[in-house]
């Protein structure tokens, strides 16, 4: 098999599997649908690993391969093709691996769902879309993948489509993403304007040429073209990677089934924005202003979204806010030109966040779809595997030394510290204080779910829809199809950081894909103090993040284990702060008032006043009346005999033409 064939198969197999599971759902049945999609994704994973192997050990250099020409118009080539380098092959492995795990897990999680085949079809379709996105070598295909993952996300959030809230959340996710895509598309149009090409390499090669060129979009204000391009593209990333203020869709996306919360809304799709900015590093490097903007948006998200996570009671929502906050960390890293650190955190986060979500899903199955942590507690005894793997995920998330998240998060914090970018001081404090917040909500989740005493009762006679806190059956550990993926995700959550930090961050493994100008290279500065992962973990004991993390642990232990009444007391003592956090800073309310209400008001106004009132009422019907009053006779003739008159015209016309044609 040639390399090109392999590369085509990688996204194509999940697509074909999706088509089979979806279109032939009745023919292949439930088992058929999971076998065909799992097989497709598994082969795709194996091939991705093979490509990564070729890159790492066989000296396969950067490949820019065209698959077919989508269209040529106006001398611009729009192609479908692949750019394979270290960055994309790494992403391919991450995406296909997590997807593979989630496919297996789904067999257990969705076992009783009537939409079983549809679900497998969607997640395989997602895998295809995401692979197309990360493998792309041009802006057209990037946008295709970008919107296609949005489509599948929309379908999966609203998967249980008889739930009003789920359908609404899907719509919300799609529309908020479209706001981002609006900027993204303008960014692509600006790229075309400045460079006349859609191809990454051509654009990157020409990028330095437009430095200094400016445009005045608003009269009197001059902007650098490169800044306009980067900010427009980044607005797209803000939608997809849920950065404030376009973050509002992600918490609501938890309405979807848990496997997709892990796959799409934690590990892969939401990191597309991070990946895109890293991919566009040759452009972003040229704009200090855009990078500062990126960094500050990320810092804002990292800190404030973490805070919201502290007061959530829905187990999935806590993890969702945690995801927002961690995406903020990645964005900050992008903003200080530490693109590799962002990708590194993206990778480690994919493993441990997928693990945490799937763990939460395991708990949710055990409790018969109870997601409220106020009705959990003490589950460590019944669910030992889920419990231990949740601890692993938590330690990785909070950045405990030697765990995966430690290396990636510490690297980001150090990089921000080393940066001299405008606003880096603020960002540093945000990511630093974010550590204590992360640690606090993570341990709160662990304690409320697995430790302490159960806050539910088991009542066999409770019926199918018992009230909150009452279960029909005692919770028990989930089946193997659920726990095996947890274990398989727990392993990399421990070791992946330790094993890969050196090549990914410091020895330039990603330098074939990522461009960093020498004056911006904060990771080089960080790397001067790097003496291997073991030394880094030992050194951590003397640094602020470690002690802040420990502080979060102590606080959470105090509030949720030692003095369980304290949480309520605190909420009562600071009602305003609590309300502010509980209502997520009132952003949803603001948008509801500002956009949704006004949009409908504008629509109705234009329709009823302008269209029906002014144009129809005054112009159209008015002129009709005028004509009518001028000639009543003509009017009656028109309305009464219209069809006869019409037939006469047709027959006349046909007659004349037909006779003539025959002659």
């Amino acid at each position: 098999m040639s390399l090109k064939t392999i590369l085509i198969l990688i996204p194509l197999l999940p697509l074909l599997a999706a088509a089979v599971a979806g279109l032939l759902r009745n023919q292949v049945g439930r088992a058929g649908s999971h076998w065909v999609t799992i097989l497709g994704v598994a082969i795709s994973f194996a091939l991705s690993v093979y490509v990564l192997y070729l890159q790492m050990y066989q000296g396969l250099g950067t490949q820019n391969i065209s698959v077919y020409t989508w269209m040529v118009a106006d001398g611009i080539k729009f192609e479908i093709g692949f750019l394979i380098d270290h960055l994309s092959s790494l992403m391919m492995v991450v995406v296909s691996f997590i997807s593979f795990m989630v496919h297996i897990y789904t067999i257990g999680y969705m076992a009783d769902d009537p939409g079983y085949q549809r679900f497998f079809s969607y997640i395989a379709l997602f895998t295809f879309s995401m692979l197309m996105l990360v493998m792309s070598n041009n802006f057209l295909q990037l946008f295709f993948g970008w919107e296609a993952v949005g489509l599948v996300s929309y379908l999966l959030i609203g998967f249980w489509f008889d739930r009003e809230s789920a359908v609404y959340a899907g719509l919300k996710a799609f529309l908020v993403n479209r706001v981002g895509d609006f900027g993204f598309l303008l960014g692509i149009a600006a790229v075309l304007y400045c460079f006349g090409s859609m191809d990454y390499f051509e654009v990157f090669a020409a990028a330095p040429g437009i430095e200094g060129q400016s445009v005045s979009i608003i009269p009197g204000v001059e902007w650098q073209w490169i800044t306009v391009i980067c900010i427009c593209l980044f607005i797209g990333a803000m939608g997809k990677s849920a950065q404030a203020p376009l973050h509002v869709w992600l918490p609501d996306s938890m309405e979807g089934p848990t496997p997709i919360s892990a796959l799409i809304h934690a590990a892969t799709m939401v990191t597309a924005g991070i990946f895109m900015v890293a991919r566009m590093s040759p452009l972003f490097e040229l704009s200090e202003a855009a990078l500062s903007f990126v960094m500050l948006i990320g810092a804002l998200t990292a800190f404030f979204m973490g805070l919201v996570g502290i007061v959530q009671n829905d187990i999935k929502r806590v993890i969702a806010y945690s995801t927002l906050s961690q995406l903020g960390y990645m964005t900050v890293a992008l903003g200080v030109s530490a693109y590799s650190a962002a990708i590194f955190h993206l990778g480690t986060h994919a493993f441990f966040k997928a693990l945490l979500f799937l763990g939460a899903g395991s708990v949710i199955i055990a409790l018969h779809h109870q997601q409220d942590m106020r009705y959990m507690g003490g589950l460590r005894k019944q669910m030992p595997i889920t419990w231990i793997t949740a601890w692993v995920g938590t330690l990785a998330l909070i950045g405990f030394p030697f765990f995966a998240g430690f290396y990636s998060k510490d690297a980001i914090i150090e990089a921000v510290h080393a940066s001299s970018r405008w606003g880096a001081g603020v960002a540093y404090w945000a990511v630093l204080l974010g550590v204590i917040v992360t640690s606090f909500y993570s341990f709160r989740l662990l304690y409320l779910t697995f430790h302490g005493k159960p806050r539910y009762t088991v009542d066999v006679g409770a019926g199918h829809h018992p009230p909150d806190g009452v279960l029909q059956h005692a919770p028990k550990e989930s089946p193997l199809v659920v726990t095996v993926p947890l274990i398989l995700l727990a392993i990399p959550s421990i070791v992946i950081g330790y094993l890969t930090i050196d090549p990914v961050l410091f020895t330039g493994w990603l330098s074939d894909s990522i461009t960093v100008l020498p004056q911006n290279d904060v990771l080089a500065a960080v790397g001067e103090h790097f003496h291997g992962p073991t030394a880094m973990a030992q050194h951590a004991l003397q640094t602020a993040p470690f002690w802040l993390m420990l502080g979060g642990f102590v606080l959470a232990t105090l509030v949720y284990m030692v003095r369980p009444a304290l949480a309520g007391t605190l909420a009562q003592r600071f009602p305003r702060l609590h309300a502010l956090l509980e209502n997520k800073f009132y952003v949803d309310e603001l948008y509801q008032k500002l956009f949704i209400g006004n949009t409908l008001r504008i629509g109705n106004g234009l329709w009823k006043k302008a269209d029906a009132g002014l144009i129809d009422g005054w112009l159209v019907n008015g002129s009709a009346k005028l004509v009518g009053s001028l000639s009543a006779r003509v009017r009656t003739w028109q309305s009464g005999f219209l069809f006869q008159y019409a037939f006469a015209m047709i027959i006349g016309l046909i007659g004349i033409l037909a006779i003539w044609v025959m002659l």
Partner: protein
Amino acid sequence: MTSNWPILSTLIWLPIFGAVVVLAAGEHRAALSRVLALIVAGLTFLLSISLFTGFDTSTAAMQFSELKPWIETFHINYALGVDGFSVPLILLTTFFGVLVVIAGWEVITDKVHQYMACFLLMEGLMVGVFAALDAMLFYAFFEAMLIPMFLVIGIWGGPNKVYATIKFFLYTFLGSVFMLISLIYLYLQSGTWSILEWHQFPLALNVQKWLFLGFLAAFSVKIPMWPVHTWLPDAHVEAPTGGSVILAAIMLKIGGYGFIRFSLPVTPDAAAALDWLIIALSLIAVVYIGFVALVQEDMKKLIAYSSISHMGFVTLGMFIAFGVFQNTDSGRGAALGVEGAMVQMISHGFISGALFLCVGVLYDRVHSRMIKDYGGVAHKMPWFAALAVLFFMANSGLPGTSGFVGEFMVILAAFQANFWYAFLAALTLILGAAYSLWLVKRVIFGKVANNDVAMLEDINAREALVLGVLAVAVLLVGLWPAPLVDLMHASVDSLLQHIQQPKTVLLGGQ
């Protein structure tokens, strides 16, 4: 088939004579008239494929030309020919010719022979519009085409059909009159009705402006542009499904075709001078109508408004060229705009046709077009729901569907002229998704809303065939638009070269 065979005449007259035959089948032989209509439409479509296979994409010259004197006293010729602009539109027409016959198969039970005859007649006349190279012949087809449409709405239409047909008639008639004046003036000045000769005929700028406005009156109503769009929602609401499909898929495109065939090449200097007007109206259509579509309660009205908004991209793409030439040295984007407009027309044909068919599927079962009468349709009609979601996604411009291609091209082109044009046009990304998917949420998803919905049965084989074929078309153009745009390159390049050369200079030199 020999190359001398008059293929265009065949495509015009086969359906028209076919209509006469179907009509002759009579009121009581409904089955026969259906089969006959299908044979005629199918044959026409098959024959029309030879336009695609035999088309030489390397030239902008007219192909498959036919020329015979018709009314010699007035120099009127029976002149036919096609280029890269007309071939895709003719194929779209013959394609839908087959689909509407199948779509009306068992739905229409009243006066079947007349119904089928009307659609065949319309098909022939519309092909005539796209193939005519003589202005008088064009005008004859242009006007005659309306008559079967009046009949379709008038006989098989809804309760308020009289108001709708009269509004439709007044609007289009008024517009056509101004175009006729422009045509007659051009004839008197040039002594010919040949559209191609008019392209080369020099005219002073102020004369061009009047002619341009005359054409604008006709084509802006037809396509339709804001603010002469209000006939369209009413006509759609009252029309039977087949009527809506042809109206949306083909008839609106005649407005766009008119701009390309007349306004731009005959009066290029006026087009350059007045492009701001068209661009402004187009952007108003995209944004204003997007908002109006959002609050519609009737599915057909919503799709009708959505059509107007999408047609804004067609007019924007066609008239963006002048701004691109001004703003860039390379002129890159001008051809993208015109080709984007053409792709948008074809794609909108597929998508709006499919959407009206989807509404028809629901209407045939529940007899309501109101959004509030539905909810949870996906529970009862999963295959229908899947197709409907695909078409509404295409309507909101999802990449991978045809709806994306044209909008993408036009937005890219608009950016080359002015950031704010692209900014306003790109708002459709949000608005289009909002009105399309909000409708999907209320109609397709949710709990089963009422008894009518609970009784729904999924689409039958006939409906699945029609919607399935359209789904394939939507995806095919979305995934590989190259064959479609390749048809147009030569014609677009030649048009753009033409409009850059002032006609007024020629006049001064004489």
